[in-house]
């Protein structure tokens, strides 16, 4: 069986003591930073990315995946214990998780979140191992026009699924694409939009954008409305084990959440956030006692937490097989791969099997580590949460500075990140989601290159995008998404789904 052979290669890499160690370290540090209120997985990864630059590629990606899982779990811990979502996908966990904590069931909520995530992660890993090789074969048939259409689909997906105003999301995508092509144009050698600045001729680094928009913007926003901060104190954790009754209620939700997350994670623009919202809605609809939701229903924690992990896992599939990020976290992973000198795309699966499979297997190990190390360490995370924000934020800012600086040893990048911080805060105040911008930013240069190649092939005839079958199908799917967006019924549903 190919599956076992591939998984064998993967575990061979992931179980090497050194890789186990970096996976452990990544999960630990990821949780440590992720627990801090107001710092989501993306900002955590951006801050910690430079640490991985000095590792060999396999270990670097393994550590980064560990950081991601850690950060996501850390975010859930904060959501449950202090009702402060570190990022949007744990906003759902807040609803019932915090109520459970107030009922004295914080331990059970945390345990169910970890075990549900682990189960979902296991299923996600198997799905990746089953479907990636076949999809990578499809990926090899992709030519320039197909890639371009795929990216159009990805961006439209990101717009449809962004919460908040659609028009603003469209604007953010265009702005991201524009920022992505700052620097030297590969084809003509002309420098673009550098304002005469030499440091910009290599383009803007993704870490600068991510730290500025997602990290600093959030910190400034947190500091400007201090009234809501830490309103009700930290819940006490007594027993970590869910009761029999809770267990019986939780496991079907875990199964459903895993299913929902696995499918939604594949969608462009999907991933963790959408999965957890969808799962919460489904659990509430299916429940015989919907009135318990919002008052500490364990299904409301188990479902979304499993769904967001499954979604996070399966969103690796388009990234690994096509080299196209479907959400900002994957954009970060692609950024890390490129820094390691690996060109993302379908060839990674065949040419670097140890890298691809090592990372897939390490995701599962990372999930296992979350259960093993994080549950016993809950006490430590609680201590961390009791440090006042006024002592924490200077440290977070400092880590941002050092993180950004060390990517290129450039102090200019630190100043640029500071400027994006101001912009990020302005975007928050104006109701513009930064995620579509970040996705556009990564896709900008790729899109331009593939558009140029496609148009060169067709001698300037745009019909090439509908004549090639793969491209035509992708554009048809895009058209359906746009139609959905315009339809009034879907619009009201969307509004409802994103209401917190």
């Amino acid at each position, binding site marked *: 069986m190919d599956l076992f052979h591939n998984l064998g290669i993967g575990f061979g890499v992931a179980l090497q003591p050194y890789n186990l160690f970096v996976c452990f370290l990544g999960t630990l540090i990821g949780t440590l930073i992720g627990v801090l209120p107001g710092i989501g997985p993306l900002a955590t990864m951006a801050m910690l990315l430079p640490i991985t630059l000095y590792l060999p590629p396999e270990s670097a990606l393994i550590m980064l995946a560990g950081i991601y899982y850690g950060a996501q779990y850390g975010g859930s811990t904060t959501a449950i214990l202090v009702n402060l979502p570190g990022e949007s996908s744990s906003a759902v966990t807040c609803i019932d998780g915090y109520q459970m904590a107030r009922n004295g069931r914080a331990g059970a909520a945390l345990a169910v979140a970890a075990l549900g995530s682990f189960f979902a992660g296991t299923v996600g890993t198997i799905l990746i191992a089953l479907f990636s090789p076949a999809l990578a074969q499809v990926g090899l048939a992709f030519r320039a026009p197909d890639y371009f259409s795929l990216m159009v689909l990805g961006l439209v997906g990101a717009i449809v699924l962004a919460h908040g105003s659609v*028009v*603003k999301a469209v604007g953010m995508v265009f702005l991201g694409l524009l920022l992505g092509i700052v620097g030297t144009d590969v084809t003509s050698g002309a420098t*673009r939009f550098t304002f005469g600045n030499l440091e910009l001729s290599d383009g803007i680094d993704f870490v600068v954008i991510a730290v500025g928009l997602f990290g600093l913007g959030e910190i400034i926003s947190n*500091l*400007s409305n201090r009234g809501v901060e830490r309103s009700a104190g930290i819940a006490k954790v007594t027993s970590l084990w869910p009761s029999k009754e809770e267990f019986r209620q939780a496991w079907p939700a875990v199964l459903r959440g895993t299913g929902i997350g696995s499918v939604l994670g594949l969608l462009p623009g999907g991933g963790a956030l959408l999965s957890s919202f969808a799962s919460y809605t489904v659990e509430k609809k299916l429940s015989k006692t919907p009135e318990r939701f919002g008052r500490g229903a364990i299904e409301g924690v188990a479902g979304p937490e499993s769904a967001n992990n499954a979604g996070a896992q399966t969103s690796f599939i388009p990234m690994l097989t096509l080299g196209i990020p479907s959400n900002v976290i994957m954009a970060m992973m692609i950024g890390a791969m490129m820094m390691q000198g690996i060109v993302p795309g379908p060839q990674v699966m065949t040419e670097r099997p140890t890298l691809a499979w090592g990372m897939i297997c390490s995701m599962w190990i990372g999930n296992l580590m979350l259960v093993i190390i994080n549950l016993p360490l809950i006490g430590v995370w609680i201590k961390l949460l009791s440090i006042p924000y006024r002592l924490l934020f*200077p440290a977070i*800012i400092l880590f941002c500075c050092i993180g950004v600086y060390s990517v290129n040893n450039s102090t200019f990048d*630190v*100043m640029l990140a500071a400027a994006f911080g101001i912009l990020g805060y302005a975007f928050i*105040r104006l109701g513009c989601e930064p995620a579509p911008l970040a996705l556009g930013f990564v896709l900008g240069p790729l899109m331009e290159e593939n558009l140029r190649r496609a148009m060169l092939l067709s001698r300037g005839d745009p019909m090439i995008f509908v004549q090639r079958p793969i491209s035509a199908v992708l554009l048809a799917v895009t058209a359906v998404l746009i139609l959905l967006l315009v339809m009034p019924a879907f619009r009201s549903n969307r509004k409802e789904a994103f209401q917190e």
Partner: protein
Amino acid sequence: MRLKSYRDFWAAMLFAVISLVFLWQSAGLAMGTAARMGPAYMPRMLCILMLIVAAVLFVRSLRTRDDEGVALNLRPMLIIPAAMMAFALALYPLGLVIAVCLSVTIASFSDKDSRPVEVFFTALFLSIFSVAVFAYGLKLNLPLWPGA
């Protein structure tokens, strides 16, 4: 005409200004043809699309009501980036230790509850921590002292 949504209006202005700046900056670049696109082709298309978005938002700001204000809290908005600027500017002449102390001190002004004694110890702790972890532990390329 009165504005009904300040958020939409200022978002429209932001998008419009950015796209005009980029259009102006693309002035010296070759446009090329559809088959052989020059460096200005895609950016100009994007600028025009962004201007359309700005126009739509502007129209909406006159028609659709939105009660959220856009008041910016200038204190953290200016002081946090200033703290980062200080770090960036101080790192090379003065080294990591002084840069850390400087940025922590400046950052503390963004919060009106900060206490001088706490700020002092935070700065002390963070400079020791970053020297130990980032300079020695991770061996990042950071100068420690002035003139290094």
